[in-house]
């Protein structure tokens, strides 16, 4: 009897520890996918556009290729789910001349993270945007959009209507179409680009996600007027 109680207790303890550990949560196994029922992609994509010069793309400190200003987006489609360190370095003969973009970004399976940047000599003299996603666990809900900018207090125009100044939180985004988004601030170059993927299928994948948009504006150099 005591042996039985001991064994039961040990089993209970084992199940308890196993539950706390739950190693299967870390296993990347999808039975439905294995038998071909679930065709959801397991990998995410990084799209990088250079607005000036040639840019080397590093993911987790591994060089994944480069993109020139003449190219369309460079696409890296083999990125696993989770956070990865993304670095963009502009190619020059001498290191350190250009600003180096370094961000830890979250990747969701089947969803694109978009970076379009003009890397200048410093952060102030660079411009671009980073669009990435994070799950909001509210399935089938339209994605919400969060915008932060450097500098802040930047006026944001969505489809030519001003929606506020940065930072902006939890904007409801209609994914039935693409949007034109514009950022304006005195003393900085205006930045404008198209938000959301072109195809409706790709836009539908954004449901249940939260879009994070980081924008960096180009500081206009001071005009020096020669004194008479």
């Amino acid at each position, binding site marked *: 009897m005591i042996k039985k109680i001991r064994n039961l207790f040990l089993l209970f303890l084992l*199940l*308890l520890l*196993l*539950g*706390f*550990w*739950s190693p*299967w*949560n870390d296993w990347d196994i999808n039975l439905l996918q294995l038998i071909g029922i679930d065709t959801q992609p397991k990998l995410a994509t990084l799209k990088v556009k250079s607005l000036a010069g040639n840019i080397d793309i590093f993911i987790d400190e591994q060089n994944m290729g480069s993109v020139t200003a003449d190219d369309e987006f460079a696409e890296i489609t083999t990125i696993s789910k989770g*956070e990865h360190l993304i670095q963009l370095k502009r190619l020059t003969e001498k290191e*350190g001349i250009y*600003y*180096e973009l*370094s*961000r*830890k970004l979250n990747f969701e399976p089947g969803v694109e993270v978009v970076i379009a940047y003009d890397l200048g000599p410093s*952060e102030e003299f660079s411009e671009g945007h980073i669009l990435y996603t*994070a*799950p*909001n*666990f*509210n399935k089938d809900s339209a994605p919400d959009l*969060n915008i*932060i*900018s*450097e*500098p*802040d207090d930047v006026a944001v125009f969505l489809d030519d209507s001003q929606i506020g100044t*940065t*930072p*902006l*939180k*939890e904007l409801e985004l209609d994914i039935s179409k693409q949007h034109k988004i514009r950022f304006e601030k005195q003393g900085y170059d205006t930045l404008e680009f198209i938000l959301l993927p072109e195809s409706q299928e790709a836009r539908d994948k954004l449901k249940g996600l*939260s879009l*994070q948009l*980081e924008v*960096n504006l180009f500081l206009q150099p001071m005009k020096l007027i020669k004194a008479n």
Partner: protein
Amino acid sequence: MSTAASLKNAVKYPTSIIVRGQDLLGIELAKSLLEQGGFVILIDQGSAEIEKYLPLIDAYNNLILMDYSGLSVLQSDLRRLDYVFYLNHHFTDQSQKVSTQEFLQASNYLDAVLDLTAKFDAKFLLSTSIKAHQSIVASKVIDLNYELQTAEKYSVYSELEIQRYSESLVREYQEKVGINTRIVRLGTLLGRGMEIDLDSVPIRLIIQALQGQRLVIPGDGLESDYYIHYLDAAYGIIKAQFAPNTKGQIYTLANEGEVTLLGFAYKLIELVSEAKEIYFDPDDHSLPPIKLYKPAINLTSIGWAPRISFERALSQTADFLKSKLSEVDWKVDQLDKTLIPIADKKEQPKSIKDKVLDFFFISNEKDDPERKVPQAAPVNTEGALARLIAERKNQEKARKGSIILANNKLREALQKKPERTPLQRLDRWLNDLFYRLKQKLNVLKNMTLTDFAFWSLGIIAFVTIYLILVAPILRLSRSLYFSYSDLNSLQSNLEQLKYNEANLNITSLKVNLRDAQDRFSDLEYLFTISGNDKSYSKLQTFMMQLQQYITGYENITKALIPLQELSNSYNSGFVPRLDGMYMSVELNNNYNTQLNQMYANRSLLGVGIAAVESNKDQVLSYLADLPEFIKSLYEPSLNKIMASDDNLGLLQNTFEYLPLLSGKEKARYYLLIIQDEQRFTPSGGSLVGYYLIKMQSGAIVDISAKDFNEFKNISPDLSDIALKQISLVNKDLVSATSVDFFDLDLIYDKEIWFKEVEEVVELNEGVAVDMSIALNLQTLATLSSQGIVYKQAQINESNFIEYLNDSLQGKDSSEARNDLILRLTAAVLEQKFNQPFKQQELGDDLSNVISDDQLRIFSSEPLFIKFLSLVHPGKKVEDTLHLGMVSSRDENILTRMPEITLAGKITVNEDGSSDKELSLNYDGQDIISSYFCSATPVKNWSVTGTELENYSQVFDLNDLATICAILLPDDDFKYGLSYQALPFEKALESGYNYEIEVDPLPGALLNYDLEFKFASSKVEALSEGAISQSNGYLYKGSSYGPIHFSFKIK
């Protein structure tokens, strides 16, 4: 219940098969097993023989009676088998012949039983007869083939050989197949109710004894035998089967000690009163010759012991026979047939046909499949004895026939593959699969397929519940706890400015928060079932917002890691000197790497701060709606972290400029101006000396120091505005030609004073100063709060000034005092900055001295001006009162701090003007004058409390807004002052702020007791410490620096 169903049900119980168990021993054995909760299958011929024993075992449910043919049923339907008892000890007549076919059938049957045993990995026990073995060992040739009267000359088998073969087969199965077997050789069974062989010599002797006849002993009567009571035999058989370590052993199961026929006869004479004398029959040679026989090891070796003695067993047998004989009036030939043994030892000679058939192992019965039950051979039925003999023989034939039939069935089972439906085939396949599984898994051996299916379903259900409910909850609790722990560690590390560790905490925290989100997602159905979809949504949104907020801190801490590295490795290299240089720098450090990293991380810091600021409110908002237990996990640490969020702006500004200020691009010069506020002056104290520090690449590369006494003879080229400042507070007239260096002490305007001092130093050092910092004694004392050592004296904040004054006893010259102050400053700098400093500690000290205005900073460089405006924004207040005193410049060095008391009433009118009725009390010892200045236009200016000759009124001709009253010492140093400050522009149309600043000379203690009255009734005091009164507020307190009073008038 059908036999098949009963057999399937048998898996719940230890199952035993007893083959040839339909005698009293077999029944007793079955009874014992049934009483112990077992399931027993009794196999024998299945005739009516069993009926007389049924009352003994009829009450037991777990019993199946089968004839020999039932073995094929067992092979297909049995689910469990633990023990097999093969009772093959029946031995009556050693000379009895058995046909080759009978022999083969018997051996085949044993072979099939052993197969079944092997299939279930059961324990097997074979019982044989000691008597038979004794005969074999004695090499008694039962050569029926060569008897004189035997016509046929071919070999035939006997019971002896069946037993010998049985033992051999069992041993072979054990060796080749690995069955757990044991063999027990039984002695002759005695006891009440046992079958009796009337032809056996002992029974014959008992009957002779009971009938009062002489006891006829064949030969010399020295032939011996072993005996055992049948109950002891049953107990021994069970013991042999169940005892450990009996595998492969052969035991003798009999009372220890053999008994000769003569001894048997003597025992009868003792026990049976009717017994007569013993007679030896010298002509009877039917018994085998006497040979030495060594029996196998007795079962007593494993703990069995006979409980019924030989005498008692013999007595029981004799009594039993006596009672039976008396029933038939002592006519032996009329004994109850059930007690009559097989007496016919002479079998009819076989015909040639039979022998041929035997040779080809073909039984007569086999020819006709319908004849399943062997028919009794025709016997002579004349006479009762003959009838009984025939009956017994028929039974024996039936037994053998049953075995033949069983073997036939087995053979058919092996050869024929009956047509089965797909369902039956599936059932068969599943059963076979399960058996194979059982062989491998011990736990399944006691389980039916149905039970297995139910268990499987139960386990699947349990696993499903465990995986979708229990495990996610456990893992969620783990993730919540870890995230709570990570958040605590993060808060602690942020507080201690350990950014690297904080960054690691954040990485772990994000993983755990994300995991908690995933687990909440796994458990979403619980929220849905309970109708708490909104709670789920809020919970997930909070988790997401918290992650984004924390991501902001991740970027912040990552950006600040180079600053932490710089702090940890920083060494200023200061070396205090004993000569007039006071201090030098001995190290050649370079922190460009860290500075470059810091500079590169500015945007990361900005992004991080933006993320923190943009998510902070949402985190707080969703946190408030969370269930209490989750809220209590995160709220304390989050509140502490968020409390420091307000400083992030300052941090960002400092961080952005720090590399530039540290000489990243070019060398920077910092001027530390040391003042002695105990020798109080409007500028904050007499100028003591300076340290000029050169910073390049983050490191201090040079330092020079000087006592300002060296400048006492120079005439500084003061600006007009500086001269005006001096005139405003100086009782004597000053001009550009008459001023000396120490007249700079009379400039109360901070910016003008810094500029003039910087200019003098720049001229002297030949460098452009980027930033100047004024330190006074109290500042140095504060910076030494952690303790410094100077000339083996322990100095700290509380005794710094005391040490200074005590050390100067007897040599209170300005030079000596300045020298000591400069050396103490060197000690403070060396001990504060040479070790990798603690940012938090230094930050706290600097924050204290800056907020108390003990440490004043000035720069005329645009970069530094911008930096200072960001980190320490000054605010110009229109209505400012400057209060101060000028101490004597003679050789009597003061050893106390100046003190001013200001009291009175300030009435703020609706038009924004204010009427002030003030009283001033200066600590007048050793002062040569005191002053009061208003920086705003005034009217009705009036000074009371002193004679007119002690008071003069001075205007700044360039700035008509400023008016000063210079007060000469009188007997009580108390003065009254009243004036009306003219209105100034209102800040806002809908309401404006009224602000007034009281600015005492730096280093002086200002005691204030001011009552503010307002014409408007809707006034809110913005400054801390206000005591509300009717139509106004009261402020009382002390301050070492300027003090602001702000009010919002609605």
